[in-house]
C-alpha cells in the first residue's frame, strides 16, 4: 500500500538520462522530501509519479495498481506556478469545482474568502491562487499529493500557515505527500524522510 516508482528511467534526448534506476516509495500518511540541485530531475520525477508522462524504463504503481487513463488520478500534482495551472478564462468558483465541491471547512482552513470565488484569476494574487490549487488537489479520491515548490512564492508566515493546514488535512486523511523544494530548512522541518534526486 504505497506509491512506488521502480527502476524509473527517463531522458529527453536519447541516451542522456535525467533519471536512471531510480527507486522511490511513499506510504500513506508519510511526508517525503525531494531535494537536489537545479535541473537534476525533481520535476521530471514528480511528473512521472503523477502520471503526466510515462517513463522510458520502469513503472509506477499506486497501491499495487497501475494508474488508469480517463479516470480521476489518485496522485495529484500541485504545480509551482498557479497562474499557469488555472484557466485564465474561468471564474475561481469553476476552477475549484472542476475537481469536486469542497466543504466550507477546507475553504476556511486555507482562508479562502467567499468573495474570491466570483472573481477572475487575474484579480487574485499568486498566493491566493495557489490556495485554490491546493484545495483543488485535495479531492476525496486523492491518495497521494506531490507538491512541486508549492509555496516558493509566498512569504514565510503564509508559507507556515499553509503547510500547517495542508499537512493537518493530509495526516487526517492518510494522504501520502511528496514535498519538492530547494529549501533544506523547510524539508527538515516537515518531512519524515528526505530523498536526494541524482545521488544514489
Amino acid at each position, binding site marked *: 500500500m504505497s506509491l512506488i516508482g521502480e527502476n524509473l528511467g527517463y531522458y529527453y534526448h536519447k541516451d542522456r538520462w535525467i533519471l536512471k534506476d531510480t527507486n522511490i516509495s511513499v506510504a500513506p500518511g508519510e511526508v517525503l522530501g525531494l531535494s537536489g540541485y537545479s535541473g537534476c530531475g525533481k520535476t521530471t520525477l514528480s511528473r512521472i509519479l*503523477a*502520471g*503526466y508522462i510515462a517513463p522510458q524504463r520502469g513503472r509506477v504503481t499506486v497501491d499495487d495498481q497501475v494508474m488508469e487513463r*480517463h*479516470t*480521476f*488520478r489518485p496522485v*495529484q*500534482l500541485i*504545480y509551482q*506556478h498557479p497562474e*499557469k*495551472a*488555472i*484557466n*485564465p*478564462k*474561468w471564474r475561481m468558483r469553476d476552477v475549484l469545482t*472542476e*475537481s469536486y465541491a469542497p466543504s466550507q471547512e477546507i475553504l476556511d482552513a486555507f482562508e479562502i474568502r467567499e468573495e474570491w470565488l466570483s*472573481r*477572475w*484569476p*487575474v*484579480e487574485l494574487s499568486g498566493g491566493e491562487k495557489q490556495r485554490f490549487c491546493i484545495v*483543488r488537489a485535495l*479531492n476525496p479520491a486523492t491518495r497521494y499529493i506531490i507538491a512541486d515548490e508549492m509555496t516558493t512564492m509566498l512569504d514565510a508566515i503564509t508559507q507556515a500557515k499553509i503547510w500547517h493546514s495542508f499537512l493537518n488535512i493530509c495526516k487526517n486523511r492518510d494522504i501520502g505527500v511528496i514535498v519538492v523544494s530547494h529549501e533544506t530548512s523547510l524539508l527538515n522541518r516537515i518531512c519524515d524522510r528526505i530523498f536526494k534526486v541524482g545521488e544514489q
Partner: protein
Amino acid sequence: MLSIQEEIEVQGVKVGGEFNVRKKMLLWLTISSGFLLIILILSFWLSNDHLRLNATNKNLAPSLGHLFGTDWLGRDMLTRTMKGLRLSLAVGAFASLISVIIATVMGICAATFGKAVDAVISWIIDLFIGMPHLVFMVLICFIAGGGIHGIVLSISLTHWTALARVVRSEVLQIKSAEYIQISRSYGKSPWYIARKHIMPAIFPQIMIGFLLMFPHVILHEAALTFLGFGLSPQTPAIGIILSEAMSHISTGKWWLVVFPGLLLVVVVKCFDSIGEQLRILLEPASSNE
C-alpha cells in the same frame, strides 16, 4: 494625512471613471444594435409598391417624399436600399456562419487528431488558398446554378481557410497548457476539455473572424452579381444597386451611390462595434471594469 485623503479621492474618481467606461460600452452596444434593428424593421415596413416602375418620378434628387431620391426607372431608393441591405445582411450572416463552422471544425481536427489528419487538412487549406479566389467562386457559383444558393455556397466554401489556420495554431498552443493537463488528471473526457477549455479560448478569434468575413462576403456577393453569376437584376441587393449606379454616377446622380454606400459602411461598422464591445465585456481582464 492629506496624502491619504488625496489618495482616496483619486481612487474614488478612478472607480467612477471605470464605471462610466462600462456604461459607455453598453450605450455603444445599444446604439449599434438599435440601428441594425431599425434597418431590419424599415426593410419589412416599407411597401414593395415603391419598387414599381414610375415614369413620372424618374431621377428625382433627395427630397422629403423620397429621402434617398429615385433612380432612372422611378423606383424609391430608400426602399431599395433597405431591402437590399436586408438581403445582403442575410446572405452575409449565413455565408459567414457556414464558413466559420467549417473553419472551426477543420482547425480543431487538424490540431487534435494527430499528424496524418493535420497534413491532410493543411494540404486542403493550401489547395484552396492557391486557387484564384474569384475564379474559384465563379466556378462553384456556376456549378450550383447561380442565385442566392450559389452565392452562399461559393463564398462559404472559399473563405474558411485563413480562419482555419488561426484556429489550428491557437488550439495547438493551448493544448499543452498546464491547466488542461490538470483537467485530464481529474479524468475529464476530451469532449469536456474541448468544450470547457478550448472553445472559450478560441471563441474571440472565431468571433473576429466572423465579423471580418462580413464585408468580404457582401463585397463578393456584389462582385459575383456584377459579373452576372449571382442575383437577378430586379432583386434589390446592395451589390446590384451599387453596380447599376456605377453607370449613372458620371451624369451627376450622386444619391444613387452615396446613400446606399454610406449605409453599407455604417452597417458593417455597427457589426464591428458590437463584436468589439462584446469581446471587451466578456474578456476576464476587462469585464469587471
